[in-house]
């Protein structure tokens, strides 16, 4: 089963994300951007990279957009196939949505609040390698 990395500083959000990922992949968690980058680096070194990352933006320490930049740099350095990155944030303005996707390299963006079905649909639209539920965004 493919590995998924869920990144959020709110335990409630992490529980929600874990529930949403049922059947999609094996979910692991990180509580901030720095921890996410380290988890990602370790996974690359193990030869078992994450297939997808769901990333919050506003977190203590390193924010989600910076973490995605660093993840993309790690992938480029390792010559690894890019994972899919979905941003999930209460920040719904243009600057964050564009910075995440055009500058940092995220593949999609959902503004909170989102329901379970919407999140699963957004994951399906990421074109993950494994079979995912056939749903829209």
């Amino acid at each position, binding site marked *: 089963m493919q590995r998924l990395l869920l990144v959020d500083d709110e335990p409630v959000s992490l529980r929600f994300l874990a529930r949403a990922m049922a059947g999609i992949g094996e979910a692991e968690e990180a509580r901030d951007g720095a921890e996410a980058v380290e988890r990602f680096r370790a996974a690359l070194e193990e030869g078992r990279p994450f297939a997808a990352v769901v990333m919050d933006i506003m977190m203590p320490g390193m924010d989600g957009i910076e973490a995605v930049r660093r993840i993309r740099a790690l992938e480029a350095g390792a010559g690894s196939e890019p994972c899919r990155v979905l941003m999930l944030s209460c920040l*719904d303005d243009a600057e964050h949505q564009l910075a995440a996707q055009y500058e940092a390299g995220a593949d999609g963006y959902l503004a909170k609040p989102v329901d379970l079905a919407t999140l699963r649909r957004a994951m399906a639209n990421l074109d993950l390698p494994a079979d995912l539920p056939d749903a*829209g965004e």
Partner: protein
Amino acid sequence: MNALFSLEGPPVVHLGIGEGRVFEGPARAHVLLGSCVAVTFHLPGHGLGATFHALLPSREEYLRKDSGGSPFRFVDTAIETMLAALSRARAPLDRLEIKVFGGANSLVQGEFGIGQKNVRAAFSTLARRGLRVAASNVGGTRGRKIVFLPATGEVFMKTLSETPVRGMTSAQS
């Protein structure tokens, strides 16, 4: 995704560049996007939806380069035209669920940046009207094929192996 392309089910409508439509009944709207942008509008609980396929960011800036007559050729006039149409359909604009798709950087055509300009135009035009974007899937170097179900607001999306050439319509995909 295959069910979306079958002969069964709601009618399929291909939206080429400069086309937009309000749907008051079930449909499957297909749009093929490279640097172009599609914005989807859906009024939850009412089966009402709308979308368009725009080529360039703003009418004022690009009219001399593109004299196409449809307001849906330009992102800013496309949004304004669609909001006016939705208002005529009695949709409360502040309840619309709005999503933005497309805006790939079409490197093959030497037009790096037009995709992002299109997306910026969409966000700024919507922000001027006080409307938020609930979801976006924009940027990158690959095109997208989207199928919008206006009755539910769902968007099914596939990224393409390469960015479609400008002028190609979704009917040609």
